[in-house]
């Protein structure tokens, strides 16, 4: 970050701009500020924000585990992509709208997506830990392979780089709680992947901070030698952490595809649109704190939801430019907010002295 700006200074400046915007919006409802404020305050934007946060938040939690253990998983975007398209394709094969063993095929699709993503994470772990690959290059390779696989597989199954539509999860409404004013519709009347996101973030936060496995993960990234001396196998810890990143990213990618999109476009940058990289920026911004990463994902997903709705209003600013708001924000955030300290041993291979 730029010298002389602390994380809190930046947050304070941002907050005062926000207060000014809200004040202007309330006083002059027809102004630019008023229109954008009404979009930002509308329940539709908030619902969309939660759904768009799913891939970012879950990939960020996964990324935190991998990077805390010392393996920088820059290929997390690739994991999101493979889980998303395989979830859609498996749901399509089984037949969407039907169920097997009383479980809807969307859930089997989700499971398949998580499995595929976990397998890719395992492959990445082997490449990085066993064969000591450069983690950044291997991560880029993972992403590029996924960029090729998504349209390749879709063409075989659907004869087009985009998959067919399998529909999305139905909302799960929790009685009574969903009647709570303001928050009820948001948190308790929502598709299942949003509950999964909240659950996974809590689990991730708990595991990382309150279990011995969590302490091993942190030690394996900060001081692998000490962990080794204490009798814990650094390699096993790193394997577990990278595989966990595959599970979390898989939930995010498959949940997003089956809960929000219902289909997956594999052309160009694919439907994932760089959300895995936004997730990396999110956890750096949150300094590896899972709950902070959840909040950060709300920021980026909120901007995404905001720009989607602004496009619909047809405001004077061209939609192509509005679409870049989340990406520009990511750049601003990693420029101005927080100097993140990477774990000491992140990116390095660890060799125990035994062999």
């Amino acid at each position, binding site marked *: *970050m730029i010298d002389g700006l602390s994380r809190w200074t930046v947050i304070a400046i941002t907050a005062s701009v926000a207060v000014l915007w809200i004040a202007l919006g309330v006083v002059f409802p027809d102004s630019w500020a008023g229109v954008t404020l009404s979009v930002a305050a509308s329940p539709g934007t908030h619902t969309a924000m939660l759904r768009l946060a799913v891939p970012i938040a879950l990939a960020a939690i996964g990324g935190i585990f991998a990077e805390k253990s010392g393996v920088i998983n820059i290929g997390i975007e690739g994991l999101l992509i493979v889980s998303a398209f395989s979830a859609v394709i498996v749901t399509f094969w089984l037949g969407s709208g039907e169920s097997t063993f009383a479980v809807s095929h969307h859930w089997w699709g989700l499971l398949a997506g998580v499995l595929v993503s976990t397998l890719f994470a395992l492959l990445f772990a082997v*490449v990085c830990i066993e064969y000591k690959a450069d983690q950044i*290059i291997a991560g880029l390779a993972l992403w590029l*392979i996924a960029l*090729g696989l998504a*349209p390749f597989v879709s063409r*075989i199954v659907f004869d087009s780089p985009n998959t067919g539509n399998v529909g999305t999860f139905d909302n799960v409404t929790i009685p009574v709680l969903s009647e709570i004013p303001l928050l009820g519709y948001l948190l308790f009347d929502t598709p299942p992947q949003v509950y999964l996101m909240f659950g996974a973030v809590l689990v991730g936060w708990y595991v990382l901070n309150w279990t011995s496995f969590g302490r091993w993960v942190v030690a394996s990234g900060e001081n692998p030698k000490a962990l080794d001396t204490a009798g814990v196998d650094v390699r096993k810890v790193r394997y577990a952490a990278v595989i966990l990143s595959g599970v979390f990213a898989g939930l995010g990618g498959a949940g997003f595809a089956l809960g929000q999109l219902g289909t997956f476009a594999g052309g160009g*940058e694919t439907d994932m649109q760089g959300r895995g990289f936004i997730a990396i920026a999110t956890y750096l911004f949150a300094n590896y704190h899972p709950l902070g990463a959840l909040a950060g994902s709300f920021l980026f997903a909120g901007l995404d939801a905001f720009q989607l709705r602004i496009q619909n209003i047809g405001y004077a600013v061209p939609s192509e430019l509005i679409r*870049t708001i989340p990406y520009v924000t990511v750049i601003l955030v*990693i420029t101005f907010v927080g100097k993140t300290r990477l774990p000491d041993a992140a990116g390095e291979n660890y060799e125990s002295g035994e062999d």
Partner: protein
Amino acid sequence: MRQRLEALLERLVRASIVERIAISIAALFASILVGGVLVFVSGAFASCQTGLNVAGWTFCYNPMQVYYELFLGALGHPLEGGWSPGNHRLATTLQQTTLLIFTGLSFAVAYRAGLFNIGTQGQLVVGGLATAVTVVYASLVVPSGVVGTVVLIPLGVLAGAVAGGFFGAIPGALKAYADANEVITTIMLNFVAVGITSTLLSWQFQDPDSPNPGTRRIPEYAEIPNIPLVGFSSRANFSLLALAFAIALMIGIAWLLARTSFGYELRTSGVQPEAAAYSGVDEKRMIVTSMTLSGALGGIGGALWVLMQHGRWLESVPPLGFDGIAVSILAANNPLGIGVSALLFGVLDSGSSAIGTATAVPPELVGILSGLIILFVAMPEFFRMIGTRYVEVGSSDLVRTDGGELAEDGATADDGGERDD
């Protein structure tokens, strides 16, 4: 200090150059093997009239046929009758080779300075639009004919280089002065580049007579001319002059990196930033400069894409920038190696349309292959393990591992990274 480092770098390069070539070739074959298995297996999920029947499953795709089409199709099937070197497919291959030399060099220059420029794609998009717009507007003032050609082409290339260089300087400055991770910023800027160029296009530069999103055509005489008599037809959109320019630039960059003090400082910054800072290199300025140079090369790639291939800028830009990453990594980021590696990827790119027409296998196979190549090049240890298991290898081949020869000199690149601080 300087002589010592220079000697060290020189020795490192020499010791590993054979090994690196071996690793690149092994990675290539490993990727082809894995890709072949993928093609064969995915054939079981496709539907077809005829295929290989194994225990009730029908495997639709024949990997051998796919690779035959991919590699020989890209050359215009030299083993079949009626082949001429001026054929359309070979021209496409060389056209892609030309463009990939620029994007490969773009990634390599940044990489040698210790930076990951994943933003070549965005720099190419921005540079290409700048070229098209500059040439379209300049052609209103510049006389047509030979004068137009001589003035407009260099002007267009310059515009692309400046725009791409500026777009590359942004993540460089953010890295140097705000410590913003360049992998993230360059990837984000790729999306921003698409947004900005689309906005500019719909705001001002869209060709009103064309249904496709793109600028007006540049005048015919501003396109890079074909050399007559050498055989490539003008419909092929390939110019040997452009390829010659790419090769000249490649040699120029190789010379810049290997023989100039700027190149020396750039490489030292990449290998040992502390040593570079100690010997008086302004670290921040070097980051911005190398990213600018890298971006300018990407921008020139965009310029040639416009001036040679399409004669206009189109909104749908092929992933030349991303392929450049694979080109450079396969060449171990060595500028001269990039020529060979770009030719290979030119074959893959042009061959992908050959498999698209001649087989039922999706042409996106090539994207997977280039990802696999990067993955395998990234894990030299894998091939070393296989190598030491099956072949007797002298210890001199193991310099980079623990206990190798160079280690006793104290500071190989690997040691520098792993030493306790």
